[in-house]
């Protein structure tokens, strides 16, 4: 396998694992972890696409922007999780729903 194929396979698998985490997990901090795993797959895919098209520096530039945005998302998500824990006493995302049916 070439490195590009490895990167593409890694991007797909990491995206899949992160998506499963987003779908199945109920702990708010675990959800942020799943989101981080997904973004790592996307970073791999961006750099692999840049390398494939001969514009690796463009891919790197986009990946840096993505890493910064992802870090901000993680920071805000974790701060929200801390606040949710203080207010509801639990990190379960189901506790956030005030509508009961």
């Amino acid at each position, binding site marked *: 396998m070439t490195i590009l194929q490895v990167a593409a396979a890694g991007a797909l698998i990491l995206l899949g694992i992160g998506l499963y985490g987003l779908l199945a997990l109920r702990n708010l901090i675990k959800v942020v972890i799943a989101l981080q795993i997904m973004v790592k797959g996307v970073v791999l895919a961006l750099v692999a696409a840049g390398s*494939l098209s001969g514009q690796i520096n463009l891919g790197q530039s986009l990946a840096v922007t993505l890493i910064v945005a992802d870090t901000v998302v993680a920071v805000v998500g974790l701060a929200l999780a801390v606040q949710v824990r203080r207010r509801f006493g639990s990190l379960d995302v189901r506790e956030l729903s005030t509508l009961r049916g």
Partner: protein
Amino acid sequence: MLQVSLLIAAVFCAIQAIRAPRLLVAAIWLAGVSALVAVLLYLLGAHEVAVIELSVGAGLVTVLFVFAISLAGEETTRLPAIIPRPLAIGLVAASVLLLAWMLAPTDNPPAADDESSFTVVVWQERGADALAQIVLIFAGVLGVLGILAEERPVEKTSAEAVQPGDELPEQVGFEVESSLERERV
């Protein structure tokens, strides 16, 4: 062979990060994923991104996770999944297969263009992205300040009981300032 073993290790770390019952252990597994992805990025030729991923992804984000977990506390109880596990696995498999099918025609790479250096691309061709990153960072800082601001009862004596000529105690001044900051955010 090295690349495939790195990929397998990264996938193993990612699965462990999802499965680990303790949040702190999951954060450490996530740092492992980040470090292994950084090595893969380096092997791909993206040296700058590899360094940033290693320092930000494996360093800063892990510290943030540990900080947040220490504030929020551990929850080791295993909660049942939101949607049934087979359905989630089916949805994920369908999405990944769809993506793989979209990636399949990229077997013939186009001719590589020579291009400008990473610095030129980041600061000149994608200068707007750098501005957007700065705005994002400030927005993130403001958001965290607003969210993490603890709700403290403001003392009643802060406005009324203090005479105009008196010197404000240090704590009262902080309370007024923090409540003003909350209103602004």
